[in-house]
Structures are given as structure tokens and as C-alpha cells.
């Protein structure tokens, strides 16, 4: 079954270029392409497998779209499209539920490869994002959490920590696979799982934060 893709990008040239590339891939169908948040949100009803989304949309934030997709379509994958792949934007997207990111100047052939890897359960990572993930997920739980919340916080497994630590030092997936005696694909799934954990944990943290604020207001 081909994988269906929705593109939400306000820049016409990038949108067309992505759309053309995806239409030409034999194993993918272009479900739609939207220039802004409103029509992007509307087209989520078509239930895409993959959402390609720019963060700065004229009428809203791509982050909200990613969050909505994660809530309504838990089996879908969101991929954020960025110019620099800088940590803040990517990390916020991962917290909202994105499992991949794409640099805007990624060549057409690689774009399709990235989507395939994502659907197969793998995610891309850069050293800076790896270091940030370690910093965010390697810390002790917050004090105000209830026991239930603390249990809901998913700690990183040893394997995941190892993958992230090596990534943070600039090792590539193939090199990490060699060092850990596992397949490249396994390494990619470890990364994707740690993205999911950051997403889950940030939801728990948001709940806990909301509860704390409510307590303070009472």
C-alpha cells in the first residue's frame, strides 16, 4: 500500500518541488498540498500517513499542526521542514510529536529516502539534537509530579543513551551500527523511540505544569 503524504508549506517553489518529487515516487501518493495552517488543518481529515510541514505559516504555527496530527492520527509521521535544522525549532517540533525533520535544500532523491526510512520506523538526527535529547531525557523527574506522572515519564534505555551519546559526538548511523553490533535500521529506530519519549514526556510535563499552576491559583 503506497504511503500518502500531505505537504503544508507556504513557499510556492518548495511546495511544488516537494509535490513533484512525491508524485513521481512509485510507492507514494500525494494526498494534498496546503499553503497555510487553516487548509492544512482541514486536509488532516484525509488522514495522511506522512505530514511534511513548515513551521512558519502565514496564519499559524506548524507546531500546532504537528500536535494536532499526533493527537488525531497517532500512526502518522510528521516531518518538519527547516532551513537550518536548528535545535530550537526541531526540538519543539519533536515535543509536539514530530519524528523527523528535513532541511529545505535536501535533494529530491533524498527526500523520498527520508520518508521511506521514517515509515520504516527510523528517524534522522544531528549531533546537537542528540545532545539536547540527552539533556532533556537524562535528567531526574520534576519534583511536583505525582507517582502516576513519574511512572509515565519514560526513561531512555541504555541502548538509546548509547546511540544518542555517539550521535552527539558526530558518529553516523553506519558507524554507530558498527560500534554497537546492530543494524543501521535498529539504530534509527532507537532514535525514533527517543523522539516519541520526548513527545510523551513533554505532554506529561505540560499536564504537571498545568496542575501546579492550578494549585497555585487556588
Amino acid at each position, binding site marked *: 500500500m503506497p504511503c500518502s503524504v500531505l505537504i503544508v508549506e507556504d513557499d510556492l517553489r518548495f511546495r511544488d518541488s516537494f509535490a513533484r518529487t512525491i508524485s513521481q515516487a512509485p510507492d507514494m501518493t500525494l494526498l494534498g498540498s496546503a499553503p497555510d495552517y487553516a487548509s492544512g488543518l482541514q486536509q488532516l481529515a484525509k488522514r495522511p500517513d506522512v505530514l511534511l510541514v513548515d513551521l512558519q505559516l502565514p496564519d499559524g504555527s506548524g507546531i500546532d499542526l504537528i500536535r494536532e496530527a499526533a493527537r488525531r492520527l497517532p500512526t502518522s509521521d510528521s516531518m518538519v521542514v527547516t532551513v537550518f*535544522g*536548528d535545535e530550537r525549532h526541531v526540538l519543539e517540533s519533536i515535543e509536539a510529536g514530530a519524528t523527523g525533520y528535513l532541511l529545505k535544500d535536501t535533494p529530491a532523491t533524498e527526500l523520498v529516502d527520508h520518508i521511506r526510512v521514517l515509515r520504516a520506523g527510523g528517524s534522522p538526527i544531528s*549531533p*546537537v539534537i542528540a*545532545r539536547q535529547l540527552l539533556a532533556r531525557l537524562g535528567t531526574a523527574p520534576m519534583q511536583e509530579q505525582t507517582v502516576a506522572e513519574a511512572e509515565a515519564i519514560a526513561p531512555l534505555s541504555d541502548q538509546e543513551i548509547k546511540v544518542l551519546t555517539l550521535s552527539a*559526538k*558526530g*558518529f553516523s548511523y553506519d558507524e554507530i551500527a558498527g560500534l554497537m553490533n546492530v543494524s543501521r535500521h535498529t539504530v534509527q529506530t532507537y532514535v525514533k523511540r527517543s523522539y516519541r519519549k520526548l513527545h510523551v514526556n513533554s505532554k506529561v510535563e505540560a499536564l504537571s505544569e498545568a496542575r501546579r499552576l492550578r494549585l497555585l491559583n487556588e
Partner: protein
Amino acid sequence: MSATESRDPIAAAEADFVLGHRTQAEHGLFAARFANWRVSVAGGAALGVIVSGLYYYLTRDAALFGWLALHTAAYACIGAMCRIYEHRRPDAGSAEHARWLRAWTIATGVTGAIMGSLLWWLPSERDDLLLSAAVIVSLACVAQVVSRGHRPIVYAAVLGQTLAVCTALALHAALAWLIPICLLFGVFALVFGLTLNRATLDAIMQRLYAQHLATELAAAHRNELELQRLRSVQLERERMMEDMHDGLGSALLSALVMLERNELPVSAAAAVMRECVDDLRLIVDSREPAARDLSTLVGMLRYRLQPRIQAAGMRLHWRMDDLASTPWLHPTNSLHLLRILQEAVANALKHSGATDIELGTRQAEAAIELTVNDNGAGFDTGHAAPGRGLTTMQSRARRLNATLAVDSEAGRGTTVTLRLPLPPQ
């Protein structure tokens, strides 16, 4: 050193403040005293009732009722004045306020005299002991006005009463010997009143000064914060200018000029744009807080360069020691470092014709060594190597306080080593 120079500036500022705020402090003192005028007026009137009642009990002289009527009327007047003043609330320092002060000064002098005149109302044939007691009571009563707070009022109260008592004593020849004591008491009351007045004024002045200092301190603090903010904005701007100036600015401008003259083919223009985007990414990475860690910083460079190395058909080998943490690595230094390494890799891609390229970091005793090594053609380091940007790399290394060694020989590849000394502990 002259006397003015040695003057403590803080003490001088305080003295200036005191000079400039004396009137304000006096107004403050007056306002504080005035706030409970009802108690003072009622207390003064009640004192008249008690004293005259006491003497009536002793002498059964109806003339004392006349004195009490006079005394009560005087206090009623003062009370009425206070009430009107309170209602009108003239500004401290205004002409109207000054008139009120004069009125009170006269009124206080008059009530003092009335209090002192008690002796006149007593029958002169009464025995001396009683009269002596009346004098003492009259003198003591002056104490109730000495702290009125306004200096002329203090003078008036003491003078009025002392004069009245002394004239009465002069009329009672047998008690004339009390006159010096009475005068002495007057002087004492005056000194006591003025001292009390001074002390209260000082306290008020100190409170004013403390408020003034607190306001100044808050203002100074705000100024300091604003200055700090401006300084950091300025510093950030300078850094950004430096970052942009070296690469992006000149590359874009020269490409633009050539494009406008139709001297730049599209492929070359694309190459310039590509370089600019790459350089922008280096700037972004160098400013990334998580990349203060050197291995992550160099890791980012590898991550950025990997696609190009692959596209050139070369194999990249990554050798990464565990490095000491580098909290001293600031964004501008990070950027120099990234640009040096990027240039070295770009040289290997462009000129070496190598099949393998190795990027490595090594933790040495007092330095971190970063190497870019290829197995390509190499070149003669003894001759100028145009187009390799070696001069720029050297100058960047100097700004980093690092040393750059280029080791190459025709046919034996090239090794570029950047040696970054660790700061002394």
C-alpha cells in the same frame, strides 16, 4: 591634598541634602505635630480645669472662675483655628501657611501668659506656701507646649508664661525671691524645648534622606540594568557583524556585482549561494548552546559536510577521542574553528583527488588537536599554494590563539592540524 578634596563625598552629599531639605523637614515636623491637635487642645483645656479646680478647693475664691473662663476661651479659639486650618489645608511653604504659623505663635504666647497669670487671680492675703505651689504648677505647665515643634511657638510659650509669672511675683513682694528661679526655669524650658525640637527634626531629616537614598539606589540599579542590556546588545551586534563580514557579506556582494555585469555563469552563482548557505549554517551551529561542547560542535560540521564528501565519492573516517569539556569556547571562537576545518575539508575535496579523508580530534596533555587528513596528491608546502586559503586559515588560528600546521608533500597526502591549547586551570 586640600580640605575640599579630602571631604568624604558621601558625607558631603548628605550635608547638601540636609541644607536643601531643611524647610521640608520643618514642614514635616509641623504636620506630624498638627496631626493630633485635638489631643493637645483638649489636654490644655483640661489642665486649666484641674488647676483652677485645685485652687478653688483651697481658696473658695470665685475669681478663679473668671480665670478658667478666660483660659477655656483661649483654648476654644485655638481649637477653632486648628479646625479651620485642617479644613483649608494650605500648602506647606505658602504665604497663607506662614500667616497661620504667626497666628499660632501669638495664640500660644497668649495661652502661656494666661497660664502664668494664675497668680494674679489668687487673693494676695493668702499664705505664701499656696502661692509658691501655684508658681511651681504654672512653671511646670510650660512643659506641655515646649515640644510644639515650631521654634517660634516654643519661644512664645516660654516667654509669655515667664513674663506673666515674673510680673505676678513682683506684685507679691514676699515672693520676689522666686523671680531668679522662675527665670532659670524659663531658660531651662527654652533649652529643653529647642533640643527636643532639634532631635525630632533630625529624625525626620534622616527618614527623608533614607527615602531619597532608596529612590536614588533604585534609579541607579535600573540604569545599570539598562546599560548592561545595551552592552550585551552591542556585543552581540559586533559579533554578528564580524561573523557576517568574513564570509557572507563579501561573497554575496562580489557575486552580485559579477551577476549584474553578466560575468558569472549560473553554475558559479549557484556555487556561491551554496557556500553562503553553508556558511550561514556554520554561524547557526557556532551559536548553538549545545555545541559549546567541542565534540558536538565538530560533530555538527561532519554532519553538514557528509553529503558533499559522499557526493565527491570519498570515504570519510571519523576519529573522535573523549574530549575535556570546553566551557571557554565562545561562539566567535567556535565559528573560527568551524571555518578552518571546513576550509581544510574543502581543500581536500577540491585539490587532493584523495579517496579517503579523515577527520579526527585528539585530547593531548594541554591541548586539543583537530586534524583533517587526506591520502591525495599533496603539494609542496615550501611554495605558495594559491586558492587554498591557507593565509586566512592561519589568521583565524591566531585569533583562536591556536596553532595551525599544514604537513604535505607531493604524492603523500595532506595533514592539517589545528592545535587548540587548553586554558590554564
